[in-house]
């Protein structure tokens, strides 16, 4: 490998990464530009670039996005929000808890950005009706989305990427991370309740407005709701059984998407048009960028340095990966971080003398939960802030961090205990 390829590759990667993290330019455009520069400047060939794109991750993302695009047209989330708000009898604290539960569960089955896009708008309508500050709702839902998403293979992009790289399946994630996330969720919600216990007051008149809502009015197409839920269930079962039948998760997701498009009779162009293609191209660009680092040997060097630092100790490596992932993911977008860490951990796994496979759990936990630390830590956080800003409301960076960062640290402490008990 020529020295100038190494220098060029590092330079392009560094500038691209800084540009992505700075958020001054569109991250998809930057990722694509950096990726194609790698090819044009011969850091890696086009064939090598395509080889590094994890099409299983891409297919899984596209498939689930199509399914969600159909589900969101049914009004199902609005229905659930109204039923939940009425179950809580308009009590804002109960609504926050119930909505957080819905968000966490949904986020485990759908990706957490989509969950936020479904839940936050209806939360804003509910909080507007109750005439209370929506910020506690949004913060609780963002935290719940990231926690719930961390519990499954498909809930959070870092897990999707780790699953794609390692072959870890839906049940592997659920069994290893599910119980931990349930505990973290419960503790988080208790603390949120404590923080906002005195600040949410609703008049009886506004509670009555909530009670006058009719959930059934939210459902425009009851038949489509049933079809969507059946296909979603088939898809989730498909993920759970994918390993048994030696089917890739992308195939399961695309099968679910195609089946739902077939039976829903919806206009396919309209549904497919709304796939988040910018996210898909962002992922593809990232895979090529990181693939270039692999090709020029940077990842191999970094892995060796890391093994040297940890002296090949699994304990130290897991703790380092967990805490480093959490802190870095809080301040950097966790997707490019995980994209870079995956080949690094793969390399460490091949050269280490002990079984490093559990390091993946540390990476998944740290990168997913770390996203809860700041407003920029995860895409779901950024999207929630954007929706709130359109309403003329604001969550400030510091305002969010004051609540969320300590909660994130608490979740990583719990995770540390969990890892020590289960894996070390």
């Amino acid at each position, binding site marked *: 490998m020529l020295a100038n390829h190494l220098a060029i590759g590092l330079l392009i990667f560094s500038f691209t990464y800084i540009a992505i993290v700075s958020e001054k330019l569109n991250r998809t455009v930057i990722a694509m530009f950096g990726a194609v520069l790698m090819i044009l400047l011969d850091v890696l060939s086009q064939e090598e670039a395509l080889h590094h794109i994890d099409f299983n991750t891409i297919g899984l993302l596209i498939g689930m996005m199509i399914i969600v695009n159909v589900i969101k047209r049914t009004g199902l989330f609005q229905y659930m929000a109204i039923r939940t708000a009425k179950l809580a009898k308009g009590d804002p604290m109960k609504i926050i808890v119930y909505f957080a539960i819905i968000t966490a569960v949904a986020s485990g089955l759908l990706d957490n950005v989509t969950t936020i*896009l479904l839940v936050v708008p209806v939360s804003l309508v509910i909080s507007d009706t109750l005439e209370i500050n929506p910020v506690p709702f949004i913060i609780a839902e963002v935290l719940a989305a990231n926690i719930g998403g961390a519990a499954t293979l498909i809930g959070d992009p870092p897990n999707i990427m780790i699953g794609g790289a390692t072959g870890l399946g839906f049940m592997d994630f659920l069994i290893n991370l599910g119980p931990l996330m349930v505990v973290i969720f419960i503790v988080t919600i208790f603390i949120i309740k404590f923080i906002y216990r005195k600040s949410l007051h609703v008049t009886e008149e506004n509670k009555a407005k909530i009670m006058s809502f009719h959930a059934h009015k939210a459902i425009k197409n009851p038949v489509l709701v049933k079809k969507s839920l059946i296909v979603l269930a088939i898809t989730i079962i498909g993920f759970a059984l994918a390993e048994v039948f030696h089917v890739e998760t992308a195939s399961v997701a695309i099968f679910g998407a195609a089946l739902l498009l077939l039976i829903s009779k919806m206009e396919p162009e309209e549904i497919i048009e709304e796939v988040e293609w910018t996210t898909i191209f962002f992922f593809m660009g990232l895979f090529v960028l990181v693939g270039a680092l692999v090709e020029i040997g940077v990842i191999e060097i970094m892995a060796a340095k890391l093994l040297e630092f940890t002296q090949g100790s699994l304990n130290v490596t897991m703790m380092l990966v967990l805490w480093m992932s959490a802190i870095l993911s809080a301040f950097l977008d966790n997707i490019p971080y995980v994209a870079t860490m995956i080949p690094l951990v793969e390399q460490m796994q091949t050269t280490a003398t002990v079984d490093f496979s559990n390091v993946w759990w540390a990476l998944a936990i740290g990168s997913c939960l770390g996203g809860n630390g700041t407003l920029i830590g995860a895409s779901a956080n950024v999207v929630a802030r954007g929706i709130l800003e359109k309403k003329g409301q604001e969550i400030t960076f510091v305002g969010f961090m004051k609540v969320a960062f300590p909660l994130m640290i608490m979740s990583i402490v719990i995770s540390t205990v969990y890892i020590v008990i289960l894996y070390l």
Partner: protein
Amino acid sequence: MDKYVNSEATQHTMILRQLGADVTVITSSMVFVKYTLACGVELSYVYNINKKGKYFLQRINPYPIDIEQFNDANDVINNIKLDIAQFENASKSHNLQTFLKIQQHAHNLIQYIEDLYLYYNVDEKHINNLYNDIRHARATINEAMDQSKRVWMSKDPFHLKPSPEEIKYRK
């Protein structure tokens, strides 16, 4: 649709459905058209194209007209072309600005009448007076039409029906 636009639509549809409204969200393209006449008057239009091939056209300036639905893009374009041509022709008249003022007042009148019945309990005497004044205005328009020279021949007006004399004259 942009995710933030989608989020706004979700909130609005939820509120409107709770009011009891039947709400349909349509993905479409909205086209704004602006054209400035030689005399400086600006014409502007908005039309909406959806995937079912329906086109909804409305003129916004110099005064709004009712939304019309078309099934063909060419009809939309032809309507805009005709509108521009007619206004260009009409702009040769030294009365254009006066007509535009009359139109603006007429448009305002419609809004005043709406405010009247939405905000007040008006007795029959005033309703009848209003109705008679409007009928009188209609008669004034007809009289003006009968006593004026026709200057646009390529098609008949949408709303004003030519008088029997004019029809007889054209025959």
